[in-house]
C-alpha cells in the first residue's frame, strides 16, 4: 500500500501494527528529525541522543501490537521519549532528573541579562539562530522540554501536558516561562 502526505500518523501506525512495514517507513521519515533534535537538545550529547533515539523507536516497534489510537501519535511518541529521558537522567544524572521535578517557578531574573555585548545590526540570521540555541540550552529542563515539544512535535499545550504527564496549567506555565526567557534573550540582540 502506498502512503501519502494526507495519511495521518495514527493510520500509519495502525497499518504498521497490522504488519505494513511501509507505513512505518513513512512514519519514521516524518518524525525522525524532530525526535532526534528533541533528544539532542535535551541531553546535549549527540552520542547519548542517538542511543536514546534508537531506544525510543525500538520501544515503539516492540509495543506496536498494543498500540491503540488513544491520542495523537506524536503525543504517544514523545511520551515514550520523555519516559526514556527520565530513565536516562535517573541513571546518569540525578540533578537533571530533579530539575524535571521542580523546575517551575523560576524567576525571570535568572535569564540572560543584558550585560552581553549589544547585537550588531548586521548580525545575520545565522548568528541569531545560534544565540537562540544557546538560550534554549540555558533553559531549565522542563521549560526546554515544553518548548521543544511545541517546536519539534508541533504540540499544543494540552498535548504537551499529556506527553509530559502534567496538568494543562503546568504545561502552559512552563511554556510561557520558556517563551518569555527566549524572547527576552533575543531582544537584547536587536
Amino acid at each position, binding site marked *: 500500500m502506498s502512503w501519502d502526505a494526507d495519511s495521518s500518523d495514527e493510520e500509519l501506525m495502525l497499518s504498521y501494527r497490522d504488519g505494513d*512495514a511501509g507505513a512505518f517507513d513513512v512514519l519514521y521519515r516524518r518524525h525522525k528529525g524532530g525526535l532526534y533534535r528533541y533528544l539532542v537538545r535535551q541531553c546535549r550529547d549527540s552520542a547519548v541522543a542517538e542511543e536514546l533515539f534508537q531506544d525510543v*523507536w525500538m520501544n515503539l516497534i516492540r509495543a506496536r501490537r498494543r498500540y491503540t489510537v488513544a491520542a495523537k501519535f506524536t503525543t504517544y511518541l514523545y511520551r515514550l521519549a520523555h519516559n526514556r529521558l527520565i530513565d536516562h537522567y535517573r541513571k546518569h544524572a540525578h540533578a537533571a532528573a530533579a530539575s524535571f521535578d521542580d523546575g517551575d517557578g523560576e524567576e525571570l531574573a535568572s535569564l540572560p541579562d543584558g550585560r552581553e555585548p549589544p547585537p550588531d545590526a548586521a548580525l545575520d540570521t545565522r548568528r541569531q*539562530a545560534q544565540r537562540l540555541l544557546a538560550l534554549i540550552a540555558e533553559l531549565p529542563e522542563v521549560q526546554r522540554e515544553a518548548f521543544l515539544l*511545541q517546536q519539534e512535535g508541533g504540540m499544543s499545550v494540552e498535548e504537551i501536558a499529556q506527553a509530559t504527564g502534567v496538568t494543562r496549567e503546568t504545561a502552559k506555565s512552563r511554556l510561557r516561562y520558556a517563551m518569555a526567557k527566549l524572547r527576552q534573550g533575543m531582544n537584547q540582540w536587536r
Partner: protein
Amino acid sequence: MALNEPHSGGAPGGAERDPRLDRLYREAVREEPPAPLDSAILAAARREVGARPRPIGWFLHAWRVPVSIAAAVVLSVSVVTLMMEEGADRTAEAPPAVPPVAQPSAAPPATDAKPEPRDVPEKQRAVVVPPAATKPAPAPAPRASGPVTGGSVSTEAAAPAAAPAKTAEPFSGAAQEQRQADDAARRPAPPQTEPGPAFAPRADRESAPPASGRVLSAPSPPPAAAPAEAARGSSETRALRRERPLVADPQKAALLRELEQQPPEKWLEKIEELRRRGETAPAEELLAEFKRRFPGHPLPPGRQ
C-alpha cells in the same frame, strides 16, 4: 482519523507561539539522525513485522493437504505392490503340489523331471490362478489313479502342498532359495518328479511314502516341516535318502517307468538290449534296480 494536523509547518500553540522564534529555531536546527541509525531502525521495524509469529506451522498448514495426499498415494502403491509380490510368491510356491499328481497318469517319457519352483511359466500360471485354486484338494484323485497307489501317498502329496501356503509368509523368497540350495547340496541327486516311488521296492513304497512324496512333489521343503524333519532324527532321513532315485537322467527314468509293470523277464531283456547297444552304464543301473526289485529272481549266467 485525523488526530494530527497535516504537516504543513503550522505550529499549534496559539498565544504561546512567537513567529520570530519559530523562524529562528528552524534556521538554527538542522540535525538529522545518522544514516546508519536510520537503516538499523528501519531494518528492525521490518524484522519485527516479518518475524511475527505466523499461525501454527504455517508451512505445514499450507502444505498439509498436498503432503497428505502424496503420502496416502505412496503408501497405497507400496502396500498394493507388496501384496501383489507376496501373493505371487505364495501362489508360485503352492502349485508344485499339482504337477506330481497329474504327471503319473500322463507323464511323457521325455518330460523334464526337474521341477523349478521359480520357473517363469509357473509363476505366470500362479498369478492368474485365484488363491482358492491353489489350495490342495483333500484327496487328489489323479494320485489314486496313478501307477503308485496308496492312501498314504495321496495324503503325503497334500501335506507339502498345504505347508508352503501356510508358512510362506514368515519366510522371504531369498531365504527359501537359500534353503533349497542347502537341500540340493545335501542330496546326492536332484529331486525327480515321479520316478522315486517307481524305483522304490513295493514294500518300501508302502512303508516310507512320505519321503518319496516329499521329495517328488515339493520343490522346496516346507519351512515349517524343516525343523520337524530335523527333529525326527537323522536315521530315517538317511534311509530315505538312500532310496532316492538312482538315475537322474529323465530318459532312464522314463525307461524305468516303462518297465514298472513288466515282469522280470522284460527287465532282463531290456538290460541285454542296452548292453548290446553299448550303453553299459544305464544297463548296470537298470540291473542294480532289477536286483533291488526282484532279489530272488535268477539272473542269466554271467550277470551275477
